[in-house]
Structure formats: structure tokens, C-alpha cells
């Protein structure tokens, strides 16, 4: 793998930029691998990379039914933060944040990680108290967090609605300065290229249709490109975990729901941070191209269609204008949907499964993108050693049976309310 550097750009300029290598090989499947990772999204590719990088397991294939970056890794709103309240989540997402901070260097690929800060507005004294609770827990865990009062918020984001007629007046905000965004496609490409550099086969347009068994043990997969044997199989197909899980014989506490995201026409720089609305579900950042990238609630009913409904477009637009009246006449350029694994407690599932040889990584709800590096790191550890990494000890599948749910959203067991 040729290293990318300023010098390599200069050298390739001498030959008209015509001699760049492919970022990763177009691999065809071998008869068998030590580990097969199903799903060539951010999590699957990161898992393959860390299997090779941290555990020396290089005879690995990543099977992707479409193309790299075509699923949820390319459909999210790219927000990265580690402002979680509950033990288990707090430490995991902060570990992820630290990996983000070194990612471009580790992968030799510019993922354009921009720590522009994220704030969530508070609209009552009680809500600000709740945010102070969260900020204190973050600080006790060594994570940066600040509580802002109304004037601080006005100084930082003067374009929000501070008028006397605001339906939900802004009382303050919780702010994490290290939060930010990254170029999501670059994350997929960077992990793909780095994994490929370690010898991992990335096989696109290869859909897994069934599992191969030897007794109770899973020993490979049936795919649209034939049978492929495997010592271990890791499932990283969030959105469709139930579909493949059912083929393996897993019963899962997951529902698939559509979450929409939106981008407006490009504007001059306006939104310098990531801004989330504490009175409704709305969050916005501005891309380097100038488009406002934002999202809101789930569509609210089981769906595997990667497109959303217009009712949610209206709700999100209403929330947007309630918070930022100045964008009321900005035109929407595109909106799209991604299929989320929604768990009953809004926390992910990463663990070995009761089926020997099968490992599960799914249930990411809204929060998968920011978790990409830590998820891959911990899932690779789990596959390599057969035991959950300490950071994901709280993400076991059996937590629902034993009552140890991690209900960060506190919305009860109805997945569509998370």
C-alpha cells in the first residue's frame, strides 16, 4: 500500500496524477478464511482492520452485499460526541472519541475529523440541571463538558431564536468542545484501504444468503458468490441484523426503523458547531460544502425501506425553524433514509452469541457512526479472544433477559419510541 503524503501528491503531479493505485483490491473470495465479517460498513471494515492490526489475524474477508460506503456509514449525519450519561456508554464512547482523534494518522487517510464542538440547548432550569448532572459524570470520567448559560449560548450561536416569542426559550446548554464531525465516506474508505493493506479481502456485491453449519457450530456462509468457509463469523449488518440473525437461529430484541437525514443548498458559513435542539429532536451541522446537514426523529414504524415519509420531513422542518428561524427560507437539497437497528434500550449489542462461531455487532440505533472505531476495536477483540472486551461488557445480548438494560434514552421497551 503506497503511503499518502504531501510528497506523494507532488510526485504524482509530475505524471499528471495518472498513476495512483487502487485504494483497495477488488478481491474475489477464497474457499475459506479465519474470520469472515459480514457487512462492509464502517463497523465491519473497522473490525477487519483491528483484527489484522491488533490481533495479527490477516486471513479475513469482509463481505458486503452492495458497495463499500453505500449503507448507513454513508447515510448518517456524521456527528461524533461522547456525552453519555450511563456507565458502560460513557467510557465506551470516550474511548471511541480518542480513536477518532488519532484516526487520520492511524489509517494514513484524511477522515476530515473536525472537533468543532457540540451543544445541546436546554429550555428549562430543570433540563439544565439534568445537563449539569450529565456534565459532572462526563468530567468525573475525564471527558470535557461545559455548562453554558443563556448569554454564553447567545455569544456562541447568536442565530438561534432568543426572541421573546420563542416557544421554548433557551435557558442554557451543555457543550462538549471535542465533539464534532468527520467525512463519513472517508471513514469507510480509510478503513477499507488500511484493512486491505493488511491483506484483508474486501468483497463487494457479495450477499450472504445463509450460514454453513457443522452440528451446532457455524463454519461458513453461503453467498451470492458461492460458499465460503470460516473459522469465525462476525455479523456487522446493523439495520438488517434481524434478517441475518434469523437465518442463524438468533432471536433478537431489535426492530428495524427508518431514520431520515437532510441537506440544504450550500450556504456561507453559519453553523460553526454541531447544534442539537433540547426541546425536540433536531440536530444540525454545516458541511464543508456549505450545506446544512440535519436530522430528527425516526419515522416511527417498522421499515426496511431506505426512504422516509413526508410527515417526518414536516416535523423536522418545524423543529428546525423553531430553533433557527433564520433558515426558514433555505431550500432542501436532498433527504434520504437509513435503516436502523432499534433496540429496546437504545444501546447497542456487541457480544459472542449462544451459537458457536458467531459473533454479533448490531443494535446501533441512532448512534453507530460515532462508535465506528471503538466498535471495530472491541468487536475485533471479542472475535479474536472469544470473550467480550471490557469496554463492551454492558452490551451483551443477555442484558434484556437479566434486567441490566442500558436505557440511555429512558423511553421504555418500545423500540420506535427510542
Amino acid at each position, binding site marked *: 500500500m503506497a503511503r499518502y503524503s504531501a510528497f506523494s501528491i507532488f510526485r504524482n503531479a509530475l505524471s499528471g496524477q495518472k498513476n495512483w493505485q487502487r485504494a483497495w483490491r477488488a478481491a474475489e473470495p477464497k474457499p475459506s478464511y479465519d474470520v469472515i465479517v459480514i457487512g462492509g460498513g464502517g463497523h465491519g471494515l473497522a473490525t477487519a482492520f483491528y483484527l489484522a492490526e491488533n490481533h495479527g489475524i490477516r486471513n479475513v474477508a469482509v463481505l458486503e452485499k452492495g458497495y463499500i460506503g453505500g449503507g448507513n456509514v454513508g447515510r448518517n449525519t456524521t456527528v461524533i460526541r461522547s456525552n453519555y450519561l450511563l456507565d458502560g456508554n460513557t467510557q465506551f464512547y470516550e474511548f471511541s472519541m480518542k480513536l477518532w482523534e488519532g484516526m487520520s494518522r492511524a489509517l494514513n487517510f484524511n477522515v476530515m475529523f473536525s472537533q468543532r464542538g457540540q451543544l445541546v440547548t436546554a429550555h428549562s432550569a430543570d433540563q439544565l440541571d439534568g445537563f449539569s448532572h450529565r456534565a459532572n459524570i462526563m468530567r468525573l470520567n475525564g471527558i470535557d463538558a461545559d455548562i453554558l448559560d443563556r448569554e454564553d449560548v447567545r455569544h456562541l450561536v447568536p442565530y438561534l431564536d432568543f426572541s421573546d416569542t420563542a416557544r421554548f426559550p433557551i435557558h442554557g446548554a451543555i457543550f462538549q468542545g471535542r465533539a464534532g464531525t468527520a467525512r463519513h465516506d472517508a471513514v469507510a474508505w480509510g478503513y477499507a484501504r488500511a484493512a486491505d493493506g493488511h491483506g484483508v479481502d474486501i468483497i463487494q456485491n457479495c450477499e450472504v444468503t445463509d450460514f454453513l453449519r457443522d452440528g451446532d457450530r457455524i463454519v461458513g456462509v453461503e453467498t451470492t458468490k458461492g460458499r465460503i468457509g470460516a473459522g469465525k463469523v462476525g455479523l456487522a449488518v446493523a439495520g*438488517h441484523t*434481524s*434478517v441475518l440473525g*434469523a437465518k442463524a437461529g438468533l*432471536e*433478537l*430484541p*431489535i*426492530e*428495524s426503523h427508518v431514520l431520515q437525514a437532510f441537506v440544504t443548498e450550500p450556504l456561507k458559513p453559519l453553523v460553526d458547531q454541531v447544534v442539537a435542539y433540547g426541546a425536540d429532536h433536531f440536530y444540525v451541522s454545516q458541511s464543508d460544502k456549505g450545506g446544512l446537514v440535519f436530522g430528527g426523529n425516526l419515522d*416511527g*414504524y*417498522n*421499515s*426496511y*425501506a431506505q426512504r422516509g*415519509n*413526508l*410527515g417526518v420531513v414536516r416535523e423536522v422542518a418545524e423543529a428546525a425553524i423553531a430553533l433557527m428561524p433564520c433558515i426558514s427560507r433555505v431550500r432542501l437539497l436532498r433527504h434520504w433514509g437509513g435503516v436502523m437497528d432499534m433496540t*429496546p434500550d437504545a444501546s447497542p449489542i456487541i457480544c459472542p452469541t449462544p451459537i458457536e462461531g458467531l459473533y454479533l455487532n448490531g443494535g446501533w440505533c441512532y448512534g453507530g457512526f460515532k462508535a465506528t472505531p471503538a466498535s471495530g476495536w472491541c468487536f475485533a477483540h471479542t472475535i479474536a479472544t472469544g470473550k467480550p472486551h471490557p469496554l463492551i461488557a454492558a452490551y451483551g445480548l443477555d442484558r*434484556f*433477559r437479566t434486567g441490566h438494560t442500558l436505557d440511555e434514552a429512558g423511553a421504555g*421497551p*418500545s*423500540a*420506535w419510541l427510542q
Partner: protein
Amino acid sequence: MLRIECPCCGLRDHDEFRYGGDASVARPAHDDPDPEAWYRYVYIRTNPAGLHREFWQHVTGCRQWLVVERDTRNHAIASVDLARKSSARKSPARNPPA
């Protein structure tokens, strides 16, 4: 847009309805002491990519609970029935029907 043919009110926009989740899940008998049955009732879902039996309540219309069969891949609705007429939730079973 997704529209639901309400048996009382006719074809209406889904915004008038509130989603109630998987209708194939049966509540265990009230005195069922088996925690596994309650675990399955509360958490386990088949979550099919295909035909899904689900509850919707017509909250801004007749307020009836409906059982709708909808394809989760394209939202095509195969049937709509009143929940009180359907067998859903009527017979306590240890395991939900497949």
C-alpha cells in the same frame, strides 16, 4: 405517503394514526410465573423484512385500534382489520406465533 384504509373512516393519511408495534406478540397469561415468557413478550421481535402484522390506532379519527398487515420493504398494505375483531392479544400463549 403511507395511507391506511380505516374500516370506520376510509382511506386516511398515516399521520392520523399512532403506531402500536408488532401485533403477533401475545401477552402471557396474567399469572404466568415464567420470566422467559415475559422476556419474550417485552423484548423479542421477529422484525421481518416482508409482511408484518402490526397495531395502529386511529387517534385523530375513530380512535379504534387496528391490525394492519404491511410489507416493511415497500409499505404495501395487505389487510386492515379492527383489533377487537382480530385474534391478536386474545389468547394468551406461551410463545408468540411465528
